């Protein structure tokens, strides 16, 4: 027999066998509305952008607050330095006044002035206050 014809006959024989039908495509995917990939990706893309923007905002807020904290701390220290002047009237100073053999009235006046200075720096200024302290200051002789 002609080999070419033999091949043809064998091909006909082979074609009597048919490949099985594959199982059906999953129903849920077949039923879902088909959408262009560009549109399907949009919500996912938008969500990613929102997450990245959120993270960026948090980082920015952190950096900003760190930057703002530094000058604020310096200002606080400056303000403290202004409202709490170190009083010159120390125990040592008082001892020196007594040892200098000054008059009792003078020592008393100096110590009183020093105490006024201390109290002014530690307590609220009764002259600037609008409340009870101002009223009390007015009653004082």
């Amino acid at each position, binding site marked *: 027999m002609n080999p070419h014809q033999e091949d043809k006959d*064998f091909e006909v024989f082979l074609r009597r*066998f048919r490949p*099985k039908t*594959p199982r059906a*495509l999953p129903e849920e995917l077949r039923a879902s509305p088909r959408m*262009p990939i*560009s549109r399907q990706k949009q919500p996912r893309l938008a969500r990613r952008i929102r997450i990245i923007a959120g993270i960026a905002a948090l980082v920015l807020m952190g950096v900003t607050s760190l930057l703002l904290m530094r000058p604020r701390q310096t200002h606080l220290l400056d303000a403290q330095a202004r409202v709490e002047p170190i009083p010159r009237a120390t125990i040592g100073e008082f001892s020196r006044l007594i040892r200098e053999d000054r008059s009792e009235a003078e020592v008393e006046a100096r110590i009183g002035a020093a105490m006024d200075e201390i109290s002014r720096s530690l307590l609220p200024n009764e002259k600037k206050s609008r409340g009870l302290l101002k009223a009390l200051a007015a009653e004082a002789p």
Partner: protein
Amino acid sequence: MKDLNRNEVEDWYTQYGPALLAYAVALTGEKGAAEDVLHQVFLKLLEMDQPRPNDPKPYLFRAVRNRAFNVRRSASRNVPLDADQWLDAPTDLVDAGLALQAALRELPEEQREIIVMRIWGEMTLEQAAAVLEVPTNTAASRYRYGLAKLRNAMQSMKECHEPTSRG
């Protein structure tokens, strides 16, 4: 170029599914894995907004081939062609069907795949060569050698079985 629509993709599955299944079995070695490959290819077509190929059959065979190779690469073990029946035989040729599947398993892959494309995919040698990315002459010689081996194997099996069946 016109975009693919859902009905077209499903029609292709119905029309080419069996041949593609045979081809995927020839490459993956397992009917279950072959069906998975087919599903992945078709579901991707359903999901994506793709231009319609001019000639869907070679396009689908190429897609199945690429997918099957990916699956095979990612598999941790070499899967031998299993004994699952993926061919329907006429009632008078049930034994021959089993023998044919066994003979196909023994063929080198490059011959097996072109036989499946030609016989059950009903593709021309030019189409098959394009899918395989080889010259048409190479495809033709693979087909010829494969067919000859298959015929010899079938003949040997027939001769082995006939004396037994006759008692």
